[in-house]
């Protein structure tokens, strides 16, 4: 049993490396600089553990008896303490301490003294339990607000300002960069970069209440052209519905409860306590990146959000009939 577990554990370790939220699966310079140092220290410490366990086991062979004991003035063994307890750990720990400082210097996660950092490209505000995202680049008419899905240009460092509207959260996309807390009244900054276009998942890493588990996060890195297209698309107001179902759905949205909390730019819906839905149809997930954005989940979310994410602010909305619900979802899906 023990041997099987011993054989399996490196396999488990390796199989974990390629998973989506693994720090070993580094896809940006921040995470990529941390990962090798982490490998070094993990391998070294596994070796140290092995050596220490052997040192603990070997003396077991030399047995004594409770009837006798060594003389009380017996000496010896000080060398062990000086070498193993003091000198070797001093050298190893100093090396790792310095390596850590160098790493921190080269790619700081946040640096309030750096003037470039003070002009963030993106402001992310944590809420219980979703992310409000402001794009601040460019003149005021080039700025826009979205939620939960953060697009960045690939191969380019982006500066984020991270804040919170309520309790503490933490922004963490393990494949791109380490985490940093989002604390009300204490803005933090992070430089984040993805080497290649792709989807990078993460989640809130500071316990923030009952739905901490469903405060997931998606960063989408795009080529420069695709990113430009995306920002142009985001600057547009909500798509005006054209099909009869979608037009009916818009009426459901505007006359129902939805618009009290949600905003769709270009319509009278200007609620500000819940995620902006202007381009909800283009997002991959709903419920703070927790559930796929498709017809079935959208319908279920509207009527039974409390079953998916108990305790969240979104109520179960059961006052729509089947047709209204289908129209509403059609409307949301064409908001691209």
């Amino acid at each position, binding site marked *: 049993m023990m041997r099987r577990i011993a054989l399996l554990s490196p396999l488990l*370790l390796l199989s974990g490396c390629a998973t989506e939220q*693994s*720090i070993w699966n580094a896809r940006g310079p921040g995470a990529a600089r941390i990962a090798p140092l982490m490998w070094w220290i993990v391998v070294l410490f596994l070796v140290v553990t092995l050596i*220490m366990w052997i040192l603990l086991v070997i003396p077991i062979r*030399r047995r004594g008896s409770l009837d006798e004991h060594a003389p009380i003035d*017996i000496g010896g063994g000080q060398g062990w303490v000086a070498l193993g307890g003091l000198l070797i750990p001093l050298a190893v720990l100093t090396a*790792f301490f310095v390596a850590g400082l160098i790493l921190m210097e080269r790619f700081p996660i946040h640096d309030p003294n750096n003037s470039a950092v003070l002009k963030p490209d993106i402001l992310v505000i944590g809420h219980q339990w979703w992310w409000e995202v402001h794009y601040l680049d460019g003149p005021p008419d080039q700025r826009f607000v979205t939620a939960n899905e953060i697009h960045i240009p690939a191969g380019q460092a982006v500066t984020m300002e991270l804040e919170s509207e309520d309790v503490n959260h933490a922004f963490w996309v393990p494949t791109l960069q380490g985490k940093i807390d989002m604390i009300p009244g204490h803005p933090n900054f992070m430089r984040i970069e993805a080497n290649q276009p792709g989807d990078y998942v993460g*989640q809130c890493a500071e*316990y923030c209440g009952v739905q*901490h588990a469903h405060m997931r996060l998606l960063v989408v890195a795009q080529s420069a052209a695709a990113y430009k297209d995306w920002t142009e698309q985001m600057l547009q107001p909500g798509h005006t519905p054209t099909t009869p179902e979608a037009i009916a759905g818009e009426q459901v949205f505007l006359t129902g409860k939805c618009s009290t909390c949600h905003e769709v730019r270009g319509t009278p819906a200007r609620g500000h306590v819940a995620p902006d839905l202007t381009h909800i149809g283009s997002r991959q997930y709903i419920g703070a990146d927790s559930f796929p954005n498709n017809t079935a989940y959208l319908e279920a979310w509207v009527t039974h959000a409390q079953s998916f994410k108990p305790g969240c602010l979104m109520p179960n909305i059961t006052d729509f009939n089947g047709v209204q619900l289908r129209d509403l979802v059609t409307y949301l899906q064409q908001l691209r």
Partner: protein
Amino acid sequence: MSATAVAQRLKTEWETPKSLWGKFATVDHKEIGIRYIVTALVFMCIGGIEALIVRVQLARPDAALVSPEVYDQLFTMHGITMIFWYAQPILSGFAIYVIPMMIGARDMALPRLNAFTYWAFLLSGILVYIAPCMGQAPHAGWFAYVPYTLYQYSPSHGMDFYAMSLILFTISMTGGAVNFILTIMRQRAPGMSINRMPLFVYSTFTISWVSIFAMPALTAACVFLELDRRWGTHFYTIAHGGSAILWQQLFWFFGHPWVYIIFLPATGMLSMIIPIFSRRPIVGYPWVAVSTILTGAVGFSVWMHHMFTVGMSDMSMSFFSAGSMMISIFTTVQIFAWVATLWKGRLVMTTAMHYALGSIAVLIVGGLNGVVTGIIPLDWQAHNTYFVVSHIHYVLIGGNMFPVFAALFYWFPKMTGKMLNESLGKWSFWICFVGFNVAFFPMQILGFIGMPRRVYTYPAGLGWSSMNMLETAGAFVLGIGILLIFINVFISRRRGRIAGRNPWNADTLEWATDSPPEAYAFVHLPTVASRHPLWDDHDEEADPSDERTLDDGRLTLVSTWLDAEPYAVASMPKETLVPLLACLTLFGFFLALVFQLMWLVLGCFLVTLSFAFYWLWPRPEAEEGA
């Protein structure tokens, strides 16, 4: 006077009457020590059951065994139960039981305070467990970060119970620390100069000083929290100029020294047990003693390593990273002193020794993965993930629970006069050891592959499912191992082999007393001539002219703190109900504060105050201790 006549006189002086009144009024350190141990073990069982429910919920992705609210309450109650009401009190229990005898005294220096701190510990635990009985348990993790714990986000009474019970707990802790300091500085046997103190005494002495300086930060943090929650102050509210980080600073200024408070006495236990079963004095006694003290001192300059992701200047983070590296060197010194003792000794592989070696093995892993979190950029990835959950359990099970089990097997014969069953003990060790590693080793990998702590569930497809299932299985195996220890205790208490005075042929003074010891412990208060009183040629109880029987009242010797030269005789107090009554009204005070019943608060306060006056009122010599 004949020896038996003296013993009889001492017995009548010291023994607590065997009546109901005696049970509540006792000030005997042996009785109180055992109560501490039993109560802490009960809390450990409760905390363990909470942990098992948590593990079942996490065994599969998207599970719904418990609701998110209940899950949050469970992991919070597990954390605070284990960290506050198990991990420290169990060490205090052993220390209160063993240390007076180990240093050749007849009781703690302040026996009534000793009773008081026990009742305060018990009642604070009961206070915090009223909350889950009302369905409103604390739910914000053991470090309870604001703003989530403010009224706006946590309106239930859970956090009020958290704050109030912890304040009562800090009162107990502080009283206990004062008592240990006084006992150790003033009651050591003649000749037990500071360089001859057993290492368990060193570690308890160190953490008592640490407690005195660390606990006020927790008290202040909790007072501020309650004031913010119920009285409209703004220590932590940003909108009115408070700071959410203030809580973190206060809490961790207490919190990291606390880690050493619940760790160092356990290393002290190992420094007693390992040499005994290596049949030689410990290698590097001065190294270990100095490392213990330095760990306690430097423990005050590492707290910000819990906050590397808060967003602080690189300079302050680097300072605390360096402190964290430095403090791990003091622990490696201790570990290598133990390893050298093993290599230079001849081992006797008792169950206690199994647990001692197992705890070093586990502690090594916990120490090393602690270094990972001490390196700032690595902590940015590891922080708040299951890697940290693994770390804290490797440190606290290797550095507290296994040493405590070793101590249980080691001192149980002294406490009960019976030996624990060795073969059942070794079975329990191997089951605990394997179960523990299966439960907690995979958590390190889970942390690396991105699983944050404190999530009530997780999606399939991130590669976390199989390891979570494995961990749950391991947790249950660990639970079975611990259950075996309890079975062993229950069976051996009645049917165990008779222990005799010194079953391990050990070297410290407590083994010179009967098993279980008489209330007065020693007929002739012992003198000491070396670090190993029972292994040297000096006869501790040689007292031909009966100068050190002190049988003329409840008396014990008082000595100087460095050289332990006797200079006075102290008269010790008799049994009294005042500590219990004062604690009960104090309990009422805090319970009333939770519900803001202000007239009751005032009433309880005044009654507690009058008990304090009665307790402390100077009395003529003859009535001393009434």
